[in-house]
């Protein structure tokens, strides 16, 4: 079966086309979903792409989380559906309370677009199943507000639950505990600052992003296999 991916487009999103290209190349059927809609088409995976939803005005993700479609995204997650927030999408999920923590300005107070190494610290999730435990992936970051923070008690809980899925090998932004990507307790909502969709082709520098995006699609097709 073909996985159905819905990419949410907020006003100010800008990586939605790249997300579509990357998931389509991996064989998924991709549908673009405008933020103002109050219903969500039938999809297996909802992607909140990178960009600057509502200009990132006030705070990154602060206005986007009120978009009408976000209630449906929440329902989808409550039903166990997969949700992936990339960069701005991660910021929105945190603002919406669907993932813990908040993203502050990078310690260096500069926007950073560069290749970084990420370590997979939990490969037992739908997002990392194609990776080896501890595998290092080369994937670019592209953000000003990627410095993840949560209260110490929350960080402890995430550690205990193995919800810190990806860590920076060399922390570029000051993020607590080198967090690059996390998941929720039910392990169906994922958020990360780096851009796996930009790392799906050797010609562009790396295809390690396929490990992550492909894992999600595997999860969808495996589950369909089990159910069918």
């Amino acid at each position: 079966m073909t996985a159905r991916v819905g990419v949410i487009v907020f006003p100010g999103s800008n990586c939605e086309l790249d997300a579509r290209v990357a998931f389509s190349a991996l064989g998924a059927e991709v549908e673009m979903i405008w933020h103002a809609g109050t219903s969500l088409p039938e999809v297996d995976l909802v992607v909140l792409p990178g960009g600057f939803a509502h200009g990132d005005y006030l705070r990154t993700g602060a206005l986007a989380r009120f978009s009408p479609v976000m209630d449906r995204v929440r329902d989808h997650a409550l039903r166990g559906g997969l949700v992936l927030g990339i960069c701005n999408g991660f910021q929105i999920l945190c603002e919406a309370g669907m993932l813990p923590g908040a993203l502050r300005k990078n310690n260096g107070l500069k926007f950073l677009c560069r290749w970084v190494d990420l370590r997979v610290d939990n490969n037992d999730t739908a997002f990392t199943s194609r990776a080896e435990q501890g595998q290092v992936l080369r994937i670019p970051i592209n953000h000003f507000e990627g410095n993840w923070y949560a209260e110490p008690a929350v960080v402890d809980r995430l550690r205990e639950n193995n919800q810190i899925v990806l860590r920076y090998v060399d922390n570029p932004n000051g993020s607590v505990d080198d967090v690059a990507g996390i998941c929720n307790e039910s392990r169906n909502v994922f958020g990360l600052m780096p851009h796996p969709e930009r790392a799906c082709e050797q010609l562009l520098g790396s295809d390690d992003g396929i490990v992550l995006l492909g894992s999600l699609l595997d999860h969808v097709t495996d589950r369909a296999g089990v159910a069918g």
Partner: protein
Amino acid sequence: MISPATLHRDLGLTDDELDAIKTRLGRDPSYTELAMFSVMWSEHCSYKSSRIHLRGLPSEAPYILVGPGEGAGIVELAPGVSVAWKIESHNHPSFVEPFNGAATGVGGIVRDILSMGARPIALMDPLRFGPLDDPRTAYLVEGVVHGISNYGNSIGVPTVGGEVVFEDCYAENPLVNVACLGLVENRLMHGRAEGEGNAVILIGSSTGRDGIGGASVLASAEFDDASSEKRPSVQVGDPFTERLLIEACLELARSGLLVGFQDLGAGGISCPTSEMAAKAGTGMQLDISKVHLREADMEPFEIMISESQERMLAVVDPANVEAVLAICRKWELQANVVGEVTKTGRVEVIHENGVLADVPADALAEEGPVYNRGLERPAWLDELQGAPMGAEPPSDLEAAFLQLLGSPAIGSKRWVWEQYDHMIFLGTVQGPGGDAAVIRLPGQDTAAVISVDGPGRYCYLDPYEGARLAVAEAARNVAAAGGRPLAITNCLNFGNPEKPDVMWQFAEVVRGIGDACRALGTPVTGGNVSFYNETNGRAIYPTPVIGMLGSLPDARRSVGLAFRSPGDVIAIVGDTDPADFGGSEYAKTVNGVVAGRPPRLDLSAESALHRFLIEGAARTSFSSAHDCAGGGIAIGLAESALAGGLGFQVAFEQDERHRFLFSESPSRAIVSFPAQGVEAVRKLADDYGVPLEIAGSVAPDRLDFGTFGVGFDVAQDVFEGAFRRALAASMS
């Protein structure tokens, strides 16, 4: 009707220009009309000093679909694949307020591309500042780079290359140029107001007082210390609205609902109304009470010349108005019908109280003054050219090499370009840090190969030769990456055109560009002229910035500058003239001299080199290719090594080694290739008639020049840290 008799002068119009306006109208202009003329007849909008010279530039080739005169040039890169390419300056606004000045510079060029119906897919930012050890420079660099980063990243257009140059002459007059590449997705749009009765729709941001008189006050007059008082002209960019505007405009272009389309840039709404009507031979009636305002109490003249950002003007069949407004609403943009196309040939501005302006569209848009200004070769030039060029040997070759490698001019610009999203669109096959950017077009194998170059020092020493060198280097950068140079856009940054020596520099530069473009087969698709880059009477170097556009049929065949494998053979292609030191990095950085004559350029040798590089790339003969430019062979080798994380071992037989290592002879490149390819590459060089000398081979860990060498880590630290350290030092 005009109250003080000298008002026109405050608006930047001369007495003669006022007389011409009166003659054309057959009466005195109204206040609103005078304001409209002042922006449309400003140097920035009318090209009154430059026009007669620009006519001499070549602008035709079978693949040039749209040449100069529209929002952007259009070039067919491959059958059915066309791109828009254009450069703009935002120099004065960036000096007044670096963050917003640079940001709105990006916004403006992007709308030029949008006006053609093309999707903006890449930006480049050639920047020039004063010496980096001046804290004010550091402040400007921080602000300008942050402004470009903030705006370009938000709108989702990658910034894939540029320049950062430091010279004393730019201290009071930084140059912020921005080039944009667009992909024509569907159909080309034109800035023409065809069809009597068609509706005129203003789309985008509300109109406020920002940028009132920007074109006349900021871009068309010299700066002096009182300019700080002109600050209300500061425009603030809203990248969020621009992002929406991009998608809305592309949807409108796809929809086929638009008859004509143009952006609002310098000159505000006066510009597209008069230009679109003039081009179509129609007229336009504009009801300014329909313009959505940000501040309620704006005067009509302010509305007519406000340079509020993120606005476009569309001409639409009345039957399609509702559909167009619906698309704008969907993208959460304001849009209003503000007028109508007429057949009067006039721009009429009305509001509740009647007619505020009624002017022939031609008079505003096409009959601006044309000046054949006096030209005079500067008296100081002979002495400058005759002076020693600064080629004296260094006391220590290795120290000189490291000094160059760590100079702000040559050191890595990573600090700058890491602040730019240079990857969005999944097309950046080669981004910043190389010779040219290689941008694979969305959904295609074809790549656009783009580069910007503007050797101001060469042009200062000899404007004609410098301009030829600028075109040659830009083309060489494109060829080194494997692209075939096709066309240029250019941004001509000069001093006060009313001074005959500045005007002579301008004429010489334009002549040089024309000659080089004809020889290399790269016509001019358009560009921008920025005069009055003077502060308190001191002009900048004549600085033409050339934006070269090339094509590469298969992005996978592009060649990078980085050495790839130890053992690869390194060859120097092209002749080195040990006398090519005038205006070189070595002369400036090591000996503190900018004098003599710039390097000598032979355009047929240059062209042969390009063909060699392009053919080598097509045959996948090279592991790397890099043009030899600032800092000569020594720096070229180091750049290839550092980019590849490798070193090299080379040996040269010359006597005066520094002359060989640091000479900036043009028409040269450094290529590397596997050892078994030596014969094939030699043959290729023979076939194209380019001299080739094997210099050594790629090796790990050390940059070894034979008589001296430095460890890779040392070189890397010097190169990568140079910019950051200089910036930090000047801020403290």
